[in-house]
């Protein structure tokens, strides 16, 4: 295996004593002090994440929007410039290549942000599907570093530290801003269920911005807290709630699929699945006794295995064991009594909605 890449902020992480692990080919900080502390900092004040491992792809050309709407299962053409749209790319059979953010820059340009673990696969898929579209598709991941500043005080900090008033920047929109003399792309987006921003810039820009945030006392947070935060907000993660074996309908993400569009890759399969009905779907689960449901643990009703945990934790905010779970549709109704097999023990649980906590977005 090739040597892990280092992000621009690698030396910072090591100097802070972070526990470093390879994630998607990058040495990334998993935790600096403790996951619960980092998690709570984001829920209560603000925290910052190095997410430079994320992949970025630039699509340019006369047919940029038509092309993106061909490979992207959500819709971009009708949106205003400056809008960010969450959605997925699908295979012809309706399963998921990856989930991603599409930044609509102009009528001839989009900026796509994809999962680090899928960047190579996604880029190949995007290139393979350019067909007769007049576009150029470029993997620009190496040009960008990225920081996420997340939490209810994120906006206040951006003003205090950089004099940047972002009160008019709406949820899921972006703009080009100057921070410490650097041009950056900044969006009101995130992966924590809190208000906050994601900042994309060249490596020097991101390093200087990160250091300024650090000097202001913002808590650095690792990928451990990133996962517990996104989970509580019931945001899907590739390889868990979504994958190349799961469709968006099964994952409960229909609201991010523009089924009314005339065409996109995978639409036919989803239309058929809609017509036939789902055999399984991702729902929420809450345990009635203590135990921690972890990914892959089987779920039963009586002797029948009816599904599996996709992600589960002892929720840090709610202090109770909850999970997202893939269940056969006939058992997916709220209130259904089931059991999770945890380390050879059957722990009673019930099906619930995935709204584990109220999202704190600034709309």
């Amino acid at each position: 295996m090739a040597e892990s890449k280092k992000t621009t902020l690698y030396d910072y992480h090591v100097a802070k004593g972070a526990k470093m692990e390879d994630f998607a080919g990058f040495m990334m900080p998993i935790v600096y002090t403790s996951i619960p502390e980092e998690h709570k900092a984001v829920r209560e004040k603000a925290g910052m994440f190095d997410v430079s491992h994320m992949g970025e792809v630039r699509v340019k050309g006369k047919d940029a929007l038509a092309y993106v709407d061909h490979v992207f299962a959500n819709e971009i053409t009708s949106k205003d410039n400056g809008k960010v749209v969450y959605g997925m790319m699908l295979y012809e059979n309706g399963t998921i290549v990856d989930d991603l953010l599409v930044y609509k820059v102009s009528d001839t340009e989009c900026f796509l942000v994809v999962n680090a673990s899928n960047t190579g696969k996604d880029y190949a898929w995007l290139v393979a599907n350019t067909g007769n579209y007049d576009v150029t598709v470029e993997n620009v991941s190496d040009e960008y570093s990225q920081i996420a500043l997340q939490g209810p005080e994120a906006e206040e900090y951006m003003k205090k530290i950089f004099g940047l008033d972002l009160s008019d920047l709406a949820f899921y929109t972006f703009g080009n801003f100057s921070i410490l003399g650097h041009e950056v792309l900044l969006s009101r987006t995130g992966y924590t269920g809190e208000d906050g921003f994601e900042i994309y810039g060249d490596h020097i820009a991101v390093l200087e911005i990160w250091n300024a945030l650090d000097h202001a006392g913002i808590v650095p947070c690792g990928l451990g807290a990133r996962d517990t935060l996104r989970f509580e907000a019931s945001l899907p993660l590739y390889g868990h709630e979504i994958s190349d074996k799961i469709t968006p309908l099964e994952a409960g993400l229909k609201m991010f699929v523009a089924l009314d569009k005339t065409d996109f890759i995978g639409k036919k399969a989803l239309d058929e699945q809609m017509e036939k009905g789902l055999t399984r779907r991702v729902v929420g689960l809450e345990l009635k006794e203590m135990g921690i449901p972890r990914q892959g643990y089987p779920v039963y009703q009586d002797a029948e295995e009816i599904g599996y945990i996709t992600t589960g934790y002892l929720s840090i905010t709610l202090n109770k064991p909850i999970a997202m779970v893939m269940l056969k549709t006939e058992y997916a109704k709220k209130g259904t009594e089931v059991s999770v097999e945890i380390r050879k023990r059957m722990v009673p649980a019930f099906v619930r909605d995935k709204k584990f906590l109220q999202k704190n977005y600034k709309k």
Partner: protein
Amino acid sequence: MSKAADGYLYTESHEWVKPLDDKTVLVGITDYAQAQLGTVVFVDLPEAGKQLKMHEELGAVESVKAASDIYSPVSGKVLEVNEDLVGEPEKINNDPYEAWLVKVELDDKSELQKLLSKADYEKISK
């Protein structure tokens, strides 16, 4: 840097044993183990009265991210479990050599000779 403590015996799977008298010991996990695990959020312990066998599963210590099996370093009967850990499992992080999991009545005192000394344990937990 993780530490081993004086007056304790150790296992290769990072449990410790503290002899209290001729036939009773406390069992816990080492500083190295807690540092590897991260913040402990749940401890799954046996009931008092349970018969343990050396090297067999005793219970589990779970951090935010993962469950880690704990193997019994000795054979014997569980006399008592540390109920304090139910409400405050993070005591294992804060003071691993005080936060014992179970108190065990030994079946065979000679088993203690199979455990690692502090010096030997330090060699494998660097």
